[in-house]
């Protein structure tokens, strides 16, 4: 059956991302929005858009019944959940299928299996996938958890079994921090994922975060689209992602991608997934988790392989075969994604809020800004602080880095403090340039990543700009002396 109309049960840039591919495929798109999002582009640019009302997330983007009602009412035949929100909620997937609607994602059984970090590891042990030493038991008493943490040996990582995105996660280095960390992870897990089950793992020192993009159809084809290197993180949130991973032999690359495919085959998976691995400095890798959805950083894979992963998802959901063979998927050039967050990296990454007066547009070729905001829209505290993803392709890694740095200057978010300058400092850092990435890159290079002092000339220019903005009336003659200054200058939207 061909999908004719998709409801996107999400917001912001990912809702727009799905919309874009659906339009390429001639499919109608319905979006939904919470009232505080009604001016955002995902609410404005779809074929139809419906309000989810206001209030807590459980009343809006997480309101399963309301989403299914709207889908039926508008006659959509499929729901795309995006990432986050209900994308890995098995109850929602079940409800959608029961209502006779196609869920563009995995089966509820796969979501249950991989959503439970404990259950997934048990299943993978059976098919001989390498795992890190840890405790994944059902006995969740504080006493048992403390005993197991001590058995595994510090440092250990405690995380919410149903978790992701750094929520409900704690590293413990010594006995005195243990109990508080266990209780904190449980409480956050309960709040964010409605489950206080936690697991404990050995914490690998200076690990790399390497993940593999997978796509499976319902005809027994399980393909990988190579790896992504996502080690540059702050507080377990990815900041910079790229592919191919630097400093990785082709042999290791193929081995880790094959391991990921074995997992998909082993659980008879359907749709898009990402297997995340911890890679130790010696090249050994351990399964961390499998995310049963499209990832935030999927565009870098699209840039180097030329595949449209959302299109693959839609094809698989309507029962088609994947339109490519493994041997046809190749990595060409290098792609880097920078996540632009509303935050102040020079002030402990404090989130920032406010009105965006102007968003800059990138001008170079093969540069993509996936952004869920428009000029004049507001950034609040209710949602994730990610404003946009800058995705840049270059013929080689050196060019991808230099193009990214150039583009970061262009994509200003005037009015809201962002991490743009900080991202430039990361990309320009010698260790990043040399490909020496690991998950402690940001804390380890804290000193190097501090902002450069401004010169007297910088300060003077800033003062001049502020002063001009405060003078309200100008003679028209003064602003028309140049016919069009924008043509000779690139960067800002015009």
């Amino acid at each position: 059956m061909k999908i004719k109309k998709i409801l996107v049960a999400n917001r912001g840039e990912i809702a727009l991302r799905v919309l874009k591919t659906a339009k390429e495929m001639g499919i109608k798109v319905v979006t939904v929005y919470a009232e505080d999002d009604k001016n955002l582009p995902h609410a404005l640019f779809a074929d139809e858009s419906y309000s989810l009302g206001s209030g807590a997330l459980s009343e809006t983007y997480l309101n399963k019944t309301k989403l299914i009602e709207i889908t039926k009412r508008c006659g959509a035949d499929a729901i795309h959940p995006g990432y986050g929100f209900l994308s890995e909620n098995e109850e929602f997937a079940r409800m959608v299928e029961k209502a006779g609607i196609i869920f563009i994602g995995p089966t509820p059984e796969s979501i249950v299996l991989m959503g439970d970090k404990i259950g997934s590891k048990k299943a993978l042990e059976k098919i001989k996938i390498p795992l890190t030493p840890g405790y994944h038991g059902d006995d969740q008493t504080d006493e048992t958890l403390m005993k197991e943490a001590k058995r595994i040996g510090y440092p250990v990582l405690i995380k919410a079994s149903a978790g992701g995105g750094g929520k409900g996660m704690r590293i413990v280095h010594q006995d005195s921090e243990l109990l508080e960390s266990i209780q904190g992870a449980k409480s956050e897990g309960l709040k964010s994922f409605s489950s206080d089950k936690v697991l404990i793992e050995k914490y690998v020192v200076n690990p790399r975060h390497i993940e593999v993009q997978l796509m499976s159809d319902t005809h027994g084809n399980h393909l990988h689209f190579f790896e992504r290197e996502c080690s540059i993180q702050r507080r377990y949130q990815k900041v910079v992602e790229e592919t191919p991973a630097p400093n990785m032999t082709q042999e290791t690359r193929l081995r880790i991608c094959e391991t990921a495919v074995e997992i998909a085959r082993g659980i008879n998976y359907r749709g898009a997934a990402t297997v995340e691995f911890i890679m130790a400095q010696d090249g050994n890798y351990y399964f961390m988790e499998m995310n049963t959805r499209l990832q935030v950083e999927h565009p870098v894979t699209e840039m180097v392989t030329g595949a449209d992963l959302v299109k693959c998802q839609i094809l698989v959901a309507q029962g088609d075969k994947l339109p490519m063979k493994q041997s046809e998927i190749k990595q060409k050039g290098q792609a880097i994604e920078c996540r632009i967050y509303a935050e102040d990296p020079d002030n402990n990454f404090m989130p920032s809020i406010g009105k965006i007066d102007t968003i800059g547009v990138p001008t170079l070729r093969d540069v993509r800004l996936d952004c869920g905001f428009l000029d004049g829209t507001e950034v609040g505290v209710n949602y994730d602080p990610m404003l946009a993803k800058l995705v840049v392709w270059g013929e080689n890694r050196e060019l991808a880095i230099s193009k990214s740095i150039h583009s970061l200057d262009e994509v200003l978010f005037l009015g809201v403090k962002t991490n743009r300058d900080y991202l430039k400092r990361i990309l320009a850092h010698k260790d990043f340039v040399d490909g020496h990435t690991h998950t402690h890159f940001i804390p380890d290079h804290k000193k190097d990543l501090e902002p450069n002092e401004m010169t007297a000339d910088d300060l003077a220019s800033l003062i001049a700009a502020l002063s001009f903005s405060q003078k309200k009336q100008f003679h028209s003659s003064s602003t028309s002396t140049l016919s069009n200054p924008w043509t000779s200058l690139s960067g800002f939207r015009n």
Partner: protein
Amino acid sequence: MDKSFIINGKEVRVQDFKHSHDTVTFSYEGKNYFYSLISRDGHEMILDDKGGRFKAAVATANRDGESMVIAAGKEAIIAEAGKKMKKAGSHAGGLTSPMPGKIFKILKDAGSEVKKGEPILILEAMKMEHSIRSDKDGKIKKIFFKVGELVQGGVTLAEVES
């Protein structure tokens, strides 16, 4: 005339500041600066500093009178000195909120004794919990908010005296 600006929290004082028609001139650290406005379009403008032209943009000022300004690729938060208001709830020497959020739990009451590193209250932001811990051994002098209240980033939440 001298004029002062607060740039990223630091005071910068310039001399002989003049702002007439479409030029701005002043001297700073012994150097004379001369800027002219070439064009503007909404928040964005092109300036000339006699050495060359560069782009600049100034955001709408916030309630504290501060604007984000971008000039020649540099970004800063600027306010004219005197125009910047004192932020509500800012108290010297207290424990501040690391980010905007909601007071989730208050673990200790005013008047109780705390040890350094002991959590006093929990702030919820972006669906995560952040413990606000005492920075010294002492007694809690005051807690400025109640459970459920929304707070801005950088606001003093509690004060502890040793």
